[in-house]
C-alpha cells in the first residue's frame, strides 16, 4: 500500500489546518454560507436531512488495518458507531458535528487519510477494481496509476472549481469491475503491439439524470504521458463545460454536444502544448510508486491440492460451501483466494458497518490478508490473499460478526443509496425497499438458482445507487407527495455497458417486491440452461416482463 512520506504528510496536515481556520471563520460569521459551501464540500462535508455527512476518501478503495481501526474509533467518538461504504469505495459518516470535523480530519491525517475532494465540483477519488493485484484477468495492476492520479489531482491548482464534479476510474483487467465506462474519464490499461504499457482513454460517461456510456477518444496513450493528457482533458472541460445549468454541466454533455471526435481533437490540440513537459512521468517515479504495491510474501502452495482439501471440508458443511461458492474467488496466485465480506445482511442498510465490525475486519486483515483490505463499489469489503486452508477459520470468525451473508453477486447483494432516510434530495426511501427485497427472497436455494443478478436502488434520478446500470434498477419517484418506484431492466456496468430501460408505470412501496418476484418468474420460465437474468432479458426483450408485472390481478 502507498505510504506517505514527509511531503504527503505535510500537504494533508496543512489541509487540516486550512479547514480548521475556515471552519472557525465560518462559525465566527466571517465567511458567508454560500462561500463556505464549496470549501466544506471540498473537504467532504455535506449538510443533509438530519445532520452533516462527512465523506472520507479511500483512495482506490485500499485500506490498512490500522486505518480501519481509526475509522472504528472515529465512528465511536464522533458519530453513532457505524459508517457507510459508498459506491465510490469511500467511507461516509452520517452524523458528525461541524465543529468537530477539523478534529476528525486531524485524526484521519494521523493514519494517512483525508477527505480532500470527496465532494464538490472538483476531481474526486479515483476508483478501481477491488481485486487489483490479484485478479486472474489482470493486464497490469491499476493501483500505482491510481496513486499517481491521486497525487496529481490533490489540490490541483487549476481544477478546484470545475463546472461540476469529476470522477476518474482505472481498469487494469479484461473484465471491468470499476464501471470505468460510467466515469467522466475511464482509463483502460492496455499493451500495444510492442508490449508497451499505456491507456485507452474514454471520456464522458456518467450516471445521474442523463446517463451516458463513455466514448473512446484515444486508443493508446503511452504511460508516461498520463498526467499531461489528463491536464489537457480537464482544461478543455474547465474552459468549455456548461456553467449556466448544473444539469448540463458534466463533461458528458460537452462531449455529446461537440461529438467525441471533436472533443478528442480539442484535447489533442491542447495536449500538444503540454506533451513532454515537466509533468511527463519519469521511470523512476513510476518505479517508486509501483514499489508500494509489491507482491506480498506468498507461500509456495500446491493449488490443486489445497483446493481439493477445501472442497472436501465444504462437502460436509453446506453453510460453509455456500459461502465458499458465493463469497470467495480464485486469485492468480495459486493456493490463495479473495474473500468478500458482505455488508448486506437483511435488516441493515446496504453498506453500513459498525465500529465493532470494523475492528473485526481489521483483525481479520491482520490475521489473513497481510493487514490490508479493500472497499468495493458494490459496498462490501474484500480481503485478498487468504490461504485456502485458512478459509474455514476466517468464515467462522466473519460469521460471528455478521460479515458472512453468503449472497455476494446475488439479488440480495444490492447497491443502494442512502435515500429518503438520510438524503434531502430523495424522492423516496431506498433502504426499506432493499430490506423488503432481502426479506422476501430469503430462501438461499432460490436466490442461488437465480444466479448472478445486480439489483440497484436509487432514491432519485441523481442515481447514486446506479439504478441505470442494474440488471434490475429501482428508482424512487415522487407522485403527488407519495413514494413510488420505477422499475428499469437490462442495465449493465460491465465492459459491454448498457443502460436500463423503463419497464412501465411505477409501483407503490407495497407492490414493489411482488413486481420483482414476477420479473424473476418470467426469467426462470424463459431462461435456457444456466443463462443469466441479463442474458435472458437481452434475448427475449422487455415485453414479456412488462405483461406479467402489469397483468390485472385475478
Amino acid at each position: 500500500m502507498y505510504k506517505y512520506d514527509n511531503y504527503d504528510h505535510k500537504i494533508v496536515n496543512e489541509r487540516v489546518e486550512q479547514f480548521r481556520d475556515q471552519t472557525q471563520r465560518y462559525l465566527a460569521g466571517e465567511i458567508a454560507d454560500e462561500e463556505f459551501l464549496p470549501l466544506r464540500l471540498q473537504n467532504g462535508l455535506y449538510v443533509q436531512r438530519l445532520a452533516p455527512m462527512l465523506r472520507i476518501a479511500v483512495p482506490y478503495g485500499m485500506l490498512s488495518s490500522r486505518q480501519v481501526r481509526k475509522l472504528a474509533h472515529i465512528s465511536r467518538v464522533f458519530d453513532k458507531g457505524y459508517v457507510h461504504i459508498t459506491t465510490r469505495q469511500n467511507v461516509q459518516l452520517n452524523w458528525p458535528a461541524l465543529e468537530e470535523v477539523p478534529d476528525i480530519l486531524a485524526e484521519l491525517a494521523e493514519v494517512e487519510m483525508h477527505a480532500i475532494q470527496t465532494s464538490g465540483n472538483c476531481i474526486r477519488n479515483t476508483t478501481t477494481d477491488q481485486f487489483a493485484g490479484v485478479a486472474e484477468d489482470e493486464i497490469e495492476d491499476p493501483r500505482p496509476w491510481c496513486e499517481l492520479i491521486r497525487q496529481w489531482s490533490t489540490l490541483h491548482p487549476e481544477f478546484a472549481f470545475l463546472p461540476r464534479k469529476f470522477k476518474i476510474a482505472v481498469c487494469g483487467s479484461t473484465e471491468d469491475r470499476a464501471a470505468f465506462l460510467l466515469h467522466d474519464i475511464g482509463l483502460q490499461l492496455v499493451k500495444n503491439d510492442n508490449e508497451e504499457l499505456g491507456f485507452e482513454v474514454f471520456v464522458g460517461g456518467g450516471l445521474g439524470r442523463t446517463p451516458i456510456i463513455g466514448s473512446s477518444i484515444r486508443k493508446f496513450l503511452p504511460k508516461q504521458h498520463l498526467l499531461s493528457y489528463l491536464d489537457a482533458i480537464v482544461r478543455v472541460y474547465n474552459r468549455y463545460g456548461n456553467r449556466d445549468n448544473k444539469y448540463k454541466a458534466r463533461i458528458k454533455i460537452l462531449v455529446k454536444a461537440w461529438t467525441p471526435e471533436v472533443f478528442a481533437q480539442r484535447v489533442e490540440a491542447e495536449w500538444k502544448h503540454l506533451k513532454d513537459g515537466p509533468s511527463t512521468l519519469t521511470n523512476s517515479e513510476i518505479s517508486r510508486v509501483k514499489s508500494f504495491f509489491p507482491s506480498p510474501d506468498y507461500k509456495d502452495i500446491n493449488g490443486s491440492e489445497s483446493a481439493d482439501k477445501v472442497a472436501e471440508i465444504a462437502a460436509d458443511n453446506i453453510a460453509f460451501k455456500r459461502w465458499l461458492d458465493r463469497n470467495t474467488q480464485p486469485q492468480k496466485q495459486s493456493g490463495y483466494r479473495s474473500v468478500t465480506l458482505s455488508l448486506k445482511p437483511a435488516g441493515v442498510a446496504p453498506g453500513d458497518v459498525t465500529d465493532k465490525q470494523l475492528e473485526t475486519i481489521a483483525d481479520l486483515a491482520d490475521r489473513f490478508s497481510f493487514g490490508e483490505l479493500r472497499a468495493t463499489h458494490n459496498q462490501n469489503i474484500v480481503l485478498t490473499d487468504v490461504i485456502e486452508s485458512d478459509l474455514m477459520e476466517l468464515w467462522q470468525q466473519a460469521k460471528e460478526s455478521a460479515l458472512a451473508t453468503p449472497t455476494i453477486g446475488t439479488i440480495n447483494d444490492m447497491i443502494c443509496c442512502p435515500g429518503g432516510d438520510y438524503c434531502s434530495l430523495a424522492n423516496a426511501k431506498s433502504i426499506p425497499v432493499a430490506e423488503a427485497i432481502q426479506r422476501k427472497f430469503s430462501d438461499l436455494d432460490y436466490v442461488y438458482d437465480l444466479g448472478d443478478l445486480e439489483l440497484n436502488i436509487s432514491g432519485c434520478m441523481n442515481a447514486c445507487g446506479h439504478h441505470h446500470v442494474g440488471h434490475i434498477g429501482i428508482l424512487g419517484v415522487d407522485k403527488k407527495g407519495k413514494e413510488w418506484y420505477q422499475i428499469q431492466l437490462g442495465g449493465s456496468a460491465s465492459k459491454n455497458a448498457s443502460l436500463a430501460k423503463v419497464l412501465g408505470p411505477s409501483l407503490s412501496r407495497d407492490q414493489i417486491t411482488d413486481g420483482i418476484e414476477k420479473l424473476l418468474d418470467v426469467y426462470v420460465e424463459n431462461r435456457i440452461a444456466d443463462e443469466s437474468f441479463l442474458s435472458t432479458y437481452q434475448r427475449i426483450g422487455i415485453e414479456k416482463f412488462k405483461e406479467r408485472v402489469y397483468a390485472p390481478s385475478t
Partner: protein
Amino acid sequence: MPQVLKDNCVVNDDWITLEESSETLPSGDVLLSYDQWQGFSEQITRHDGSVGVIIDGNAEIEEIIEPLLKLPLIAINFPKFADGRGFSAARLLRERFNYTGEIRAVGGFIRDQLYLLSRCGFNAFKFADDTDLSESAKSLKDFSETYQVSVEQKNPLFRRR
C-alpha cells in the same frame, strides 16, 4: 486611496476604472474592459498613462491575447467565485504566452482561493468588497508544498522528492 494585494503586500491601487458608458479616456493609469480597450484604440495611442485590460475568464484567450501581451496589467474577471475558468486563463497567459506583467484577479473571487489563484499565475488581487487585505494575505500561504506543476513551481513534486 483604494488598495490592492499585490506580490504579497497591501499597496495603493492607482489604476482608474471607467464606467462602461464613459466616452472619454481620463489621464493616468486606466484599467479598461476589453470592449473599452477596443473602443478607445485610437485615443490609447496618445494616452499619457499606462493601460491595462480586464478580460473574462471565459475569453477565447488564443484569439484575443496577442495585442494585450505588451500591456503592463491584464485583469481576469470572476463573474462568481465558483467559476473556475479564470484559473485556466491565467495559466495560459503565463505558461503559453509567457506574459510577465501583472495578472490581477477582479470580481467575485474569495480569499480562500488566493493560494490556488497565485499558483495559477495571479500576482494581484482586487476584491469587489471590503475584504481585509492583510488578513487575506495569510491565505496565500495555506500550503508550503504541492504535487503538481504550476506557474510558481516548474517541477512537479515527483521530480523533486
